[in-house]
C-alpha cells in the first residue's frame, strides 16, 4: 500500500509531459516569485487539456474563477468591513457577535469564508491569525493568502513565538499587551479588526478603508494614520 502510494506520487509528479526531475522552487524561498520552474507549467497545461477534452472542466469556468480572485475579491473587501466597524459601533458589535450576518450586510461571504469569526485588537489584546496545518485564510474578505502566510516559517513559529514573529515583521509589542493567536484548524475563518489609529477622527469611511492593510487584518501589522503633507 505504502509502496503503491509512493509509486503513485512519483507517477503524479512525472506524468503529463514531464520528462525530467523538475527543479522545484522551495516554498520559503519563493519571496520574489522569480525562477518559476517551467516543468509544472507543462504538467498543468497537459492536465488541463485532458480535463477539458474529457468534459470534466469548463475552461471558461477556469478563467472566471481566476478572474474572481485576481480582480474581484481581495483585501479591499475586508478594509471596507473594518472601516464600517470603526465608524459604526453597533455594526462592530454585530460583527463580533455574528460575523457571518454582519459580513452579509456588506455583501461578503461564501467560498472559504462560509463561517467567519472577527476578533478585535485593543490596547490590551493583539490578535494574530495562522493556519499551522495548511493554508486556511478568509478569502471573501482578504482574497487568496500571500506566500509567506502559507510558508513553513510562519506556520511553525507563529504559535510558539508570536512576539518574535511580530518583531521580525516590525511590530514590537509591549508586555502589557496580551497576544492571542488563532490557529485556523476548522472551517472557521478569522479576520482581525485592527485598532483605529489616532488622528483619523475627521476621516470618512472610504478614506478609513484606504488605510486598512491586508497585513493588519491578519494581525501582523498595525494600521498607521495617514501622513499629513507639510506637517511634522
Amino acid at each position, binding site marked *: 500500500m505504502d509502496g503503491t502510494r509512493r509509486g*503513485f*506520487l512519483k*507517477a*503524479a*509528479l512525472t*506524468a503529463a509531459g514531464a520528462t525530467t526531475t523538475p527543479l*522545484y522552487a*522551495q*516554498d*520559503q524561498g*519563493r*519571496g*520574489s516569485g522569480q525562477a*518559476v520552474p517551467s516543468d*509544472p*507549467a507543462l504538467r*498543468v*497545461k*497537459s*492536465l*488541463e*487539456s*485532458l*480535463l477539458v*477534452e*474529457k468534459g*470534466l*472542466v*469548463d475552461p*471558461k*469556468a477556469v478563467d*472566471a*474563477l*481566476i478572474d474572481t*480572485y*485576481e480582480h474581484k475579491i481581495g483585501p479591499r473587501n475586508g478594509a471596507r468591513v473594518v472601516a464600517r466597524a470603526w465608524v459604526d459601533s453597533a455594526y462592530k458589535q454585530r460583527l463580533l457577535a455574528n460575523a457571518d450576518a454582519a459580513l452579509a450586510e456588506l455583501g461578503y*461571504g461564501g*467560498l*472559504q469564508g462560509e463561517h467567519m469569526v472577527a476578533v478585535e485588537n485593543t490596547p490590551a489584546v493583539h490578535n494574530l491569525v495562522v493556519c*499551522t*496545518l*495548511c493554508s486556511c485564510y478568509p478569502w471573501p474578505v482578504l482574497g487568496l493568502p500571500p*506566500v*509567506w502566510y*502559507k510558508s*513553513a*516559517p510562519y*506556520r*511553525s513559529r507563529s504559535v*510558539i513565538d508570536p*512576539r518574535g*514573529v511580530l518583531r521580525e515583521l516590525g511590530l514590537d509589542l509591549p508586555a502589557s499587551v*496580551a497576544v*492571542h*493567536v488563532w*490557529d485556523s*484548524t*476548522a*472551517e*472557521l475563518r478569522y479576520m482581525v479588526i485592527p485598532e483605529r489609529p489616532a488622528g483619523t477622527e475627521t476621516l470618512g469611511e472610504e478614506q478609513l478603508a484606504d488605510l486598512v492593510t491586508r497585513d493588519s487584518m491578519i494581525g501582523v501589522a498595525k494600521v498607521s494614520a495617514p501622513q499629513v503633507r507639510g506637517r511634522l
Partner: protein
Amino acid sequence: MNGVHDMGGMHGMGPIQLEKNEPVFHARWEARVFALNRLVGAWGKWNIDASRHVKELIPPAEYFRISYYEKFLVGMTELLVNSGLVTRAELESGKPARDSKKMNPPLTVDKVPLFVARGVPASRDVTVEAKFRVGQRVRARNLNPTGHTRLPRYARGKPGTIERDHGVFVFPDTNAHFLGENPQHLYSVRFAARDLWGDQAAPQDAVYVNLWDTHLEPA
C-alpha cells in the same frame, strides 16, 4: 497523522519572507491549478478534508521541496485517479481513453458566481448534544491517528478552556477518509501559551484552536 504538515511549534524553518506588491499568482500555471482544483472538486467525488489529507501524504522531503501550488497539483492528480475521473494511462498520454465518453462539467462558467458566493458550508443543521460548555476546563486528548486529524500535535494532552461553541460541524478526521461526516460540536479552545510552551511564553498570551467534541475530554 504525525506529518510535517503539522508544523506548529517546530524550529529551524528560517525567517519569514515578505514580498512587496505580491501578485495573487506568481505564474499562470499556479492560477490554472488553483481554479482546476476547485472545478474538479465540484464533481463531489471527494471533500475538502480528503483533499487536505492527500497533500499530507506527500513524503516529507518532497513536501518541503515542492511549492505550494505543486502540492495542489500532486494532490488533485492523485484524487482524480483515485476517484476514477481520470485514469493513469490518460494522465501519462495526456489524451482521453478511446472508449471514454465526453462528460458535462457540473460547475460551468454561469454557475461560478453562485458557487463563489455560497461556498461549501461545513456546518450541519442537526441536533447533536454538546459534550462541553463555554467556560469549562478541558484537555485535548492525546490522539495520534495515522490518518487525517485537525488536532495539532502541539495541543495534544494540554489543558484548555472552552471559549466558544460554534455549533455542529462536519468532523474532518472521519470525513477525510469517507467514513462519514460525523457532525458534532466545534469549539474555540483557549490554551494558555505557557501550558503549551512552558516558561518561555509570555504569561498573558494564548493560542486558540478549533477542536471538536471527539478531540476533547474533561480536565
